């Protein structure tokens, strides 16, 4: 009887263990690592209202100051001290974890200044020669019209940005994030306590869930306390922005939002992304990479024809606008000696193919996220800032005729 009892106990323990492991295996393996259609969020009116309230609160605030710590799984943290003042003034001091230097971005509504403490870092638009000439006692000065520019984009010029800001600070000044028009939906994900403040969590998906953001919005002041962004590219990229020391009626004195250079400092006319691209007459670097249909595409195989090479990615609003135009152009010029060639080395193949299908893109495309493909883009075509879309027109002899970045609304 005792032996039977013991056996029963062991059988029960074994079955319970197996059930528990079955559950654990299911939970561990049910990883959302790969994009799935269910990731596209359907709009929930209440969650959408929370999101809209957060944006409105940001826009209606008289002054706003907060500390933002942006980090990722690589353990590196960038800390931003942000001060925003109406109508278009701001001051952002940025530092990163091991560095004690604070690099600063200041705007007074008309002008924007960027300056560095001590020697400035090497930027991706630099070359050795220009860097040697401009490494210290320089500043950048740019025109800064109210509500039209993204501060988050300018922050990159500070050069110490490991993890950029997720929520665009210019929202405070009335700037609309270009991604706003690509929101699939907003849904609620419950509530959570962040540093003693009760927050609503909402999930916002953009561009068919190519990007997802989670906002922890404080119930008290409707401002975010934490934001998480997941970019589904060839691999998933996660970063987190944490807000603290928030003052929505902060006194920001005038001298904080204007700047004049110390004596002896020189103004540095920073090259734009277009300035560092291949110039007309230079040889277009050849490549042999994977195509969207599983084959290979070699640029030199198109010798004798003019090639319009367009580097794109799904998560770029400009690309989403320009690619359908290019498709139209391709159809109109299909039988002429002009080839439209897409080039995507950033995105997950499944997602890129889906994007191509949805937009009926039939022109040849390279979908290759290998390091070789990335080298072609960064070093070959000198798109050091990874600005998309990047257009390069290559003539029949394989020489560059023209190269430019971006998309201008209404540009034909």
């Amino acid at each position, binding site marked *: 009887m005792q032996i039977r009892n013991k056996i029963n106990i062991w059988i029960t323990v074994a079955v319970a263990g197996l059930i528990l492991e079955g559950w654990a295996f299911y939970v*561990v393996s049910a990883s959302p690592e790969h994009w799935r259609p269910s990731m596209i969020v359907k709009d929930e009116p209440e969650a959408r209202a929370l999101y809209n309230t957060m944006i409105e609160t940001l826009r209606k605030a008289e002054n706003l100051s907060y500390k933002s710590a942006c980090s990722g799984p690589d*353990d590196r943290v960038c800390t931003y001290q942000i001060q925003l003042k109406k109508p278009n003034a701001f001051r952002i001091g940025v530092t990163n974890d091991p560095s004690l230097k604070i690099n600063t971005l200041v705007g007074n509504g008309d002008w924007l200044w960027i300056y560095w403490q001590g020697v400035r870092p090497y930027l991706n638009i630099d070359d050795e020669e220009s860097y040697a000439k401009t490494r210290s006692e320089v500043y950048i000065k740019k025109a800064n019209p109210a509500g039209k520019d993204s501060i988050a984009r300018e922050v990159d010029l500070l050069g110490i940005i490991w993890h950029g800001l997720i929520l665009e600070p210019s929202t405070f000044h009335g700037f609309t994030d270009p991604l706003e028009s690509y929101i699939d939906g907003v849904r609620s*994900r*419950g509530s959570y306590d962040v540093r003693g403040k009760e927050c609503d969590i909402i999930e916002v998906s953009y561009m068919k869930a190519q990007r997802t953001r989670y906002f922890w919005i404080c119930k008290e002041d409707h401002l975010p306390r934490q934001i*998480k962004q*997941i970019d589904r590219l060839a691999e*998933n990229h996660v970063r987190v922005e944490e807000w603290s020391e928030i003052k929505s009626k902060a006194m920001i004195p005038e001298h904080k939002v204007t700047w004049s250079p110390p004596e002896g400092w020189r103004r540095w006319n920073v090259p734009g992304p277009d300035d560092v691209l291949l110039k007309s007459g230079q040889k277009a670097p050849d490549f042999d990479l994977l195509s969207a249909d599983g084959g290979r595409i070699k640029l030199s195989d198109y010798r004798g024809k003019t090639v319009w090479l367009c580097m794109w990615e799904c998560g770029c609003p400009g690309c989403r606008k320009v690619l359908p135009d290019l498709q139209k152009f391709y159809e109109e010029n299909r039988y002429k000696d002009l080839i439209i060639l897409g080039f995507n080395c950033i995105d997950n193949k499944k997602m890129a193919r889906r994007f191509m299908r949805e937009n009926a893109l039939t022109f040849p495309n390279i979908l*290759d996220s*290998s390091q070789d493909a990335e080298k072609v883009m960064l070093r070959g075509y000198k798109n050091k800032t990874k600005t998309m879309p990047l257009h390069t027109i290559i003539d029949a002899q394989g020489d560059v005729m023209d190269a430019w970045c971006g998309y201008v609304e209404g540009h034909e």
Partner: protein
Amino acid sequence: MRKYELIRETFCRRGFIWIVHVVWLVLYGGFWWLFLPNGPEFGRFVFIWSGFFLPLALTAGIFGDDIASGRICVLVTKPLWAGELYICRVLGVTLQATAHFILTGCIVLILHLIMRKGSMEYLGTWLFASWLLFITVAALSTSLSVVVGRTFNSLLILVVVVTVYFILGLLMSSMRQKADTGVLTAFIRYAWPPFELLSKFAGGEYGKYSLIVGRFSVSKSVACVVHSLFLTVVYSLIGIILLGKRQFSRQRD
């Protein structure tokens, strides 16, 4: 009393065991002192050194020595059940590890308080994940010690793990564009000592930087712990069965 003696034996069976503990603790202190790492950096260091290398050092020849000397024949005679012997040995090593991790935490805390530098963030989770990895690797190594002579159990695990991860790394980089490496990675992830799952759990990938938000994130962490414990039990059961089935001779190897 018998169990206590069997557990105590895991510490006293070889003279170098206490030296291993001391050397490892000095290593942690030295690493903290020299590099002033943040919590996750130090956590990863402890994870590899104490989660993987320490159990290999402590279980080297844990049964192999007794088998080689012929002492195992005395140990596995009635009333001692082979399973009891196995469990006591693994338990002994686990208790050593528990004390080792508590001491590690104390050393880091003291250094942190003295130097007022470095960060303790995530250190608790890293130590817990290291402890879980320790017991899994210890169970695997102990089971292997039943069939592999002398101290080659630890050496074999070390060589196999390093080789497999090296080959996997090569395959992943070369196959990334050509084929799906899912089957291979799934095997390494779920049947192998759970390096990946536990480091993700400890590093906060199922927390702050997880691809999921809310309660599911917590259940994923719990699932990692459960899976790790399940693997420990499976490795131990294999060891107990092998120990029970094997016929030992009194002759020295």
